[in-house]
C-alpha cells in the first residue's frame, strides 16, 4: 500500500515537472483560464442587443411617432423607416431581424375604441432574437398604447400590477453567466487535452515503455496522471474564480467556492479518465485532435451551459445525463449563482462520483489492454 502511494507520488511529481517544462501547454492553460474567460464575459452581448429593426409607418400620426421613438439602444438599433415594398427584399437579405408595420388610420381607430392590429414580421432564422425580441416589441407597443389611452382617458385599466424580479442576477447581466460557464468549458477541455496529450507524448517519446519495465503497475501510472493533471487544473480553476471572475470582472459569487472546487475535483476525476481513454483509442495526434472535437462540442453545447436543458428534446436530455458535464454544470449553477449548499447539490456530486468511477475503471481496463501496443 505504501509502495503504491509512494509510486504514485513519484510519478505524479514527474508529470508536474514535464508540464512545467512545456511552455506551449502552460500558455494554453494560462490563456484558457484568464484571457479566454475575460473575453467570453465581456464580449457576450445581452440577449437583445442592438437588434436591427425597421418600421413601415403608414399612419404617420402622433401615436405612431410615439411607438417609433420607443425603440432605443442598447436593445434596438435606431429604427429605420422603410416603405412597404422594401420589406421583403430587406428581410430576404437579412438586413433587419424585425419589421413593424403600423397600418393607416391606426391612431384614429385606437381613439375610436377599436383594436387595430400592428403587424410584426420576424426573421425567425435569427432564432436567438426572434422570441425574446417579439415579446419585447409587443411589450413596448403595449405600454406606449396604454399610456396613450390613459392620457386620453379612453377606458379604465385594471389596477393589477405584475412586479417582476429576477433572483440571483437582478439585472440579468449576461457576463455573469458566460464567464462562469467558460470556466467550466475550460476545465473540461484542458483536463482532457492535458492527460491525453501527456500519454500520447510519452508514447511518441518511448518513455511509456520505460515505465512499463519498472516495478510500477498500470493503475499507478494512470492514477498519477489523473491526480497530477487534475491538481493543476483545479488550482487554475480556483485562481481563475478568485482572480479573474471576482477580481478582474467584479462578478459576485454567491455560494461556497470550496464546495464548487470539490465539484470540480470530481469532474476532473471523470474528464482526466476520459482523456486517458481517448489517448489509448487514438493512434496519433491528428486522430486525437479530431476525436477531441467530436467529444468536446456535444459536451459543451448540450450540458446546459449554453441553452437550458429543459428545452432540449427528451432523448437528448436523457443521453446527456451520462456526461459528467451535465451534472457539473447543474451543480455549478446551483452553487455559484444561487448559493446552494451541499444539502441541495449532493445528488449531482453523487452522480459525478459515480460517472467518474465508471470512466476511471473503463479507462484503466482499456489502458491495461492496450499497453502492449503503446510500447
Amino acid at each position, binding site marked *: 500500500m505504501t*509502495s503504491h502511494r509512494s509510486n504514485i507520488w513519484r510519478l505524479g511529481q514527474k508529470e508536474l515537472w*514535464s508540464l*512545467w517544462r512545456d511552455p*506551449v501547454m502552460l500558455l494554453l492553460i494560462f490563456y484558457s483560464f484568464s484571457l479566454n474567460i475575460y473575453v467570453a464575459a465581456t464580449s457576450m452581448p*445581452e*440577449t437583445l442587443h*442592438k437588434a436591427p429593426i425597421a418600421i413601415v409607418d403608414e399612419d404617420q400620426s402622433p401615436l405612431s411617432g410615439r411607438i417609433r421613438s420607443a425603440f432605443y439602444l442598447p436593445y434596438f438599433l435606431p429604427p429605420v423607416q422603410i416603405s412597404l415594398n422594401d420589406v421583403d427584399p430587406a*428581410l430576404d437579405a*437579412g*438586413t433587419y431581424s424585425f419589421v413593424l408595420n403600423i397600418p393607416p388610420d391606426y391612431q384614429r381607430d385606437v381613439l375610436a*375604441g377599436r383594436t*387595430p*392590429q*400592428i403587424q*410584426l*414580421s420576424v426573421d*425567425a432564422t*435569427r*432564432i*436567438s*432574437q*426572434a*422570441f*425574446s425580441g417579439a*415579446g419585447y*416589441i*409587443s*411589450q413596448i407597443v*403595449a405600454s406606449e*398604447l396604454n399610456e396613450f389611452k390613459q392620457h386620453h382617458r379612453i*377606458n379604465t385599466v*385594471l*389596477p*393589477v400590477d*405584475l412586479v*417582476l*424580479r*429576477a*433572483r*440571483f*442576477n*437582478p439585472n440579468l447581466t449576461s457576463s455573469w453567466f458566460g464567464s462562469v460557464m467558460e470556466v467550466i468549458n475550460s476545465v473540461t477541455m484542458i483536463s482532457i487535452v492535458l492527460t491525453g496529450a501527456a500519454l500520447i507524448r510519452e508514447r511518441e*517519446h*518511448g*518513455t511509456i515503455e520505460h515505465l512499463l*519495465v*519498472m*516495478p*510500477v503497475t498500470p493503475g499507478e501510472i494512470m492514477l498519477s496522471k489523473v491526480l497530477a493533471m487534475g491538481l493543476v487544473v483545479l488550482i487554475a480553476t480556483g485562481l481563475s474564480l478568485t482572480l479573474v471572475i471576482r477580481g478582474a470582472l467584479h462578478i459576485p459569487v454567491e455560494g461556497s467556492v470550496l464546495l464548487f472546487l470539490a465539484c470540480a475535483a470530481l469532474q476532473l476525476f471523470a474528464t482526466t479518465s476520459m482523456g486517458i481513454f481517448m489517448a489509448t483509442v487514438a493512434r496519433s*495526434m*491528428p486522430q486525437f485532435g479530431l476525436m477531441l472535437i467530436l467529444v468536446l462540442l456535444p459536451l459543451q*453545447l*448540450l450540458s446546459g451551459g449554453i441553452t*437550458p436543458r*429543459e428545452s432540449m428534446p427528451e432523448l*437528448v436530455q436523457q443521453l446527456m445525463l451520462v456526461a459528467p458535464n451535465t451534472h457539473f454544470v*447543474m451543480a455549478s449553477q446551483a452553487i455559484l*449563482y*444561487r448559493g446552494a449548499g451541499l444539502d441541495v447539490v449532493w445528488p449531482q456530486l453523487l452522480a459525478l462520483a459515480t460517472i467518474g468511477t465508471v470512466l476511471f475503471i473503463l479507462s484503466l481496463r482499456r489502458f491495461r489492454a492496450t499497453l502492449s501496443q503503446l*510500447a
Partner: protein
Amino acid sequence: MAVTRQAAPVAIVRQLSQHYGSTVALDELDLDIPAGQMVGLLGPDGVGKSSLLAILAGARQIQQAANGKTEVTVLGANLAKAGERNRVCPQIAYMPQGLGKNLYLSLSVEENLQFFARLFGHDASERRRRIDELTAATGLSAFLARPAGQLSGGMKQKLGLCCALIHDPQLLILDEPTTGVDPLARSQFWQLIQRIRAQKPDLSVIVATAYMDEAGRFDHLLIMHGGRVLASGSPAQLHQQTGTTDLDAAFIALLPAELRQQHHQVEVPPLLTDANTAVAIAAEQLSMQFGDFTAVDRVSFQIRQGEIFGFLGSNGCGKSTTMKMLTGLLPASHGQAWLFGQPLRPDDISTRTRVGYMSQAFSLYSELTVRQNLVLHARLFHVPAASIDARVALMLQRFGLTTQQDALPEQLPLGMRQRLSLAVAMVHQPELLILDEPTSGVDPVARDQFWQLLVDLARQDKVTIFISTHFMNEALRCDRISLMHAGKVLVSDTPAAIIASQQATDLEQAFIRYLQQAGAGEQTQNAAVSTAAPTVATAPASRHFSWRRLWSYASRETLELRRDPIRGALALLGSLVLMLFIGYGITMDVANLNFAVLDRDQSLLSRHYAQNLAGSRYFIERPALQSGAEIDQRMRSGELALALEIPPNFGRDISRGDPVQIGAWIDGAMPNRAETIKGYVQGMHLHWLSQQAREALGTNVSFSAGVETRFRYNPDVKSLVAMVPAMIPLLLLMIPALLTALSVVREKELGSIINLYVTPVTKLEFLLGKQLPYILLALLNYLLMLLAAVTLFAVPLTGSFVALTLSALVYVVFATGFGLLASTFTKSQIAAILVSVLGTIIPAVQFAGMITPVSALEGSGRLIGLLHPASYFLSISRGLFNKALNLQDIYPALLAMSLAVPVVLLLALWLLPKQERG
C-alpha cells in the same frame, strides 16, 4: 578506383557557419568537393554532417556570416540565390538521413516512383521506362505494388535511391544511407552505386556515413568533428598521415588531443564459467505474431550469468521484439521464457527489479534533469530512501556525469545521453541488463567508452548483458552472438566459431554468407542500368507553374487519404454526428419551465390566475408553495424557474378596484432564459387582464398590444430549421481547415516536406496540390450534410441548389486555404489542431451571426464578422434554405466571400518557406 581526371570542384564552400540556438553545427567551414568522385563525409553524430549535406542539397537556408563572405557554390550555382538554386536543383538528388525519410510509407513502390517522376516533369511513357529500368536494376521490380512502409530497411533505401535517381542528377547526396541496414543489403547497395557510377562516370556522389569499413572504399574522405574538417584525402593518404592501418584507428588519431586521451582500447577478459554457472535467461520456441506477420519465429537460446550475449541483425528482423518479450513488455504469442529460472510472466512485478532495460530510442524524460532522472528511477525501483543519494552519486561518478548532473538531457551530446540511459538502467543494481542498440549514432570514442563500462559491469559485477547491435566490431567483443534475420535465429555461437564455420575472413562476410544461405537478398543483381542518357531528353517543365507537378501532389495526397480511412471517416461521419447532436440539442425556444405559486389568497380569482399560466405549453406547475422561505429554498435548488406570489385579499381587492401587486420571481442564473420567461409572464399577465376586463367589467377592450406577430421563414420558430443552415457553415469551415492544416504539418513532422525543398515543385503547386483533395472531400461532406438536412432533419431546401453548391465550393476553397495558412506557422500537429480549431470555431460561432447578428456586434468582433466569409456563407445558407432565394439574390454575398480566397492563399504562399530555416 583512383580518378585521374581533374575537374572543377562540384561544390565549393567558404566561411560557412551554421548555428542552431547556442549549438554550433558548422564552424567557418571551407572545403572543395572534387567532381566525378565518391566523396565520404566521416564523423560521429552531431558534428554537422547532416547540416552540411542539407545545405549542399539546397534544402536548408544558408546562414550568412556577418562579414558576408559565406559562399556555397554547387554545380556552378550560388545556392544563396533562389533563382540559381531553382535552376540547379533538378540536377541534384538528395536522400536525407533516416530510413525512408522522404518516402510516403502508405504508398506503394510504384506510386512513390510515379510521384517523384511527375515532379520532375516526365511524361507517362518516359516515367514507365525509367521506373522499369531503375526497379530492374535494384531488384525492386517484383515489389512494385508493396507499400513502402512494409519494405525492409535495405529495400527502403534502394527505393529512396531510385526516387533520387529518377531525374538523372549530376550530384547525388546520400546522408547515412546504410545505417540500420543488414550487411548483405548494405553490400548490395554499394554494388548498385558502383554500377551506376560505372555507367555515368561524371556523376558525383557525396555520402555521409558512420561505418568506417564502408568509408575505406571511397575515393576521397573528409573527416569532420565539431563543425570543422579535421583532415581530407584518400583513405591511403589518411593512413599514411596517421600511420595507421584501419580507418577507426585513423579517425581516433585525427581527433583533438583531449578527446583522444579519453580513448582506450577495449579489452575483454575471458568469461570464466563452469557447469554450475546459473542460466540468467532462457528462451524456448519464443514466437511473436502481429496479425499475419510473424515478427519472431520460434527463437530459442540460453544466456549464462555474467555473459555478454549479442544479437545481430538488420532493422526489423525481430531483435527488438524478442527483447521486449523478455522484459515483459510484450506477451509472447507462443513459447516460453525463463528469467533466473522463473517462468516469465508479464505481470510479475518482482522480477522487474532484477532487470535493467535500455530501449532503442533515447527514452528518458527530457523534461527532467540528469539527476532528477536518476532519482526518479531509483525511487520507482524502490532503492531504500537512505541509500538513494549515495547510489545516484556513485552512478554519476562511474558514468562520468557528475559535472552535468543539473543539465537537461537534450543539452548533452549523444554519447553522454547514452551513458545516462545506461546509468538509469543500472541505478537499482540489476543482475541482468537488456540493451537494445545502445550505441547507434555514437562516435567511435564514445562507443568504446561505453563498451568499457559494459565489460566492467559484466566481468567485475557479474551482470549478465544481453545487447543488440549492428556494428561488427562490437559483436566481436561479445562472448556469444546470435545472427537474426526475418524473425529467425540463423546461428548462435562464439564469434570465432561463426567465422570459422563459414571459412570467412571476418564476421561480416560470415554473416552475409549465412544470410545468402537463408535465401535473403534480392536476386536481380545483374540487370544493369541500361542507358545513362535518356532516349527522350527531359523536357524541362516550366520553372514557374506546371499542372503535372500540381497533379502529382494532388494525386499522392488523395492516395494517402484513401489509405487512412479513419481520417476521412472521422471527417465525414463526425460532421454528421455533430450536426445531429447540435441540431437537436440547441434550442432557443424555452419551454417546459417549472413554476409554483404561493397563493396567500386562495380565492377563485387567484386560482384562475395561476391556471392561466399552467395552461400554456411553456409552463409546468409544481406543487404549491407554502411560505416565503420555501420560495427561497426551491429556487436555490434550481427546481423552480419561476415563483408567483399572490397577495392576501387578491380577489377582494380586484373587485373593489383597489390596486393589487402580484410578485413574480424569476431565476436569473441563466440570463437568456430569464429574459424569455419575463416576456412570457408579461404576455400572459396582459392576456389575463383583458380576459378579466371582458368577463368582469363587460368591456371588450384588449390590453394586449394589438401586435400581430408573424414569424417569417420558420413559422413554428423551430430551432432545427434555423440551426441546420447555420451548422453547415461551421462544420464546413472547421473540419476541412483542420484536415488540410494537418496534412502539411504531418509532412513537416515526418520529414517528407524535404521534397518541397529539393524538387522543382513550386510553393503554389505544392499548396494547391495539397488543397485539391481536401476541397473534394469537403464537397462530399457538404453533399452528405445537405442530404441529412433534407431527409433526416426534414429541413427543406427552399432556394436554389446550384447557388448553394456554388457558394459551398467557394467557401471550402477558403476553408482549406485557411488550413494551409495555419500550417505555415505551426510546427507540431497538436499546435496545428489548436490553431485551426480556435481559428475557425471562434469566428464562426461568435462573430459570423450564428447566434447574434453581425449588425449587433461591436468593435473588433463586428469587424471580423464583416470580413469573415463565414458570415456571408451563413446568410447565403439561411437565405437558400429558409427564404427561397436564388443565385441573383445571393451573388453580392457570394462575391464578397470570394474575395477572401486569394487573400488566404497569397498569405499562405508568402509565409511558406521553400527551404528549411537554417
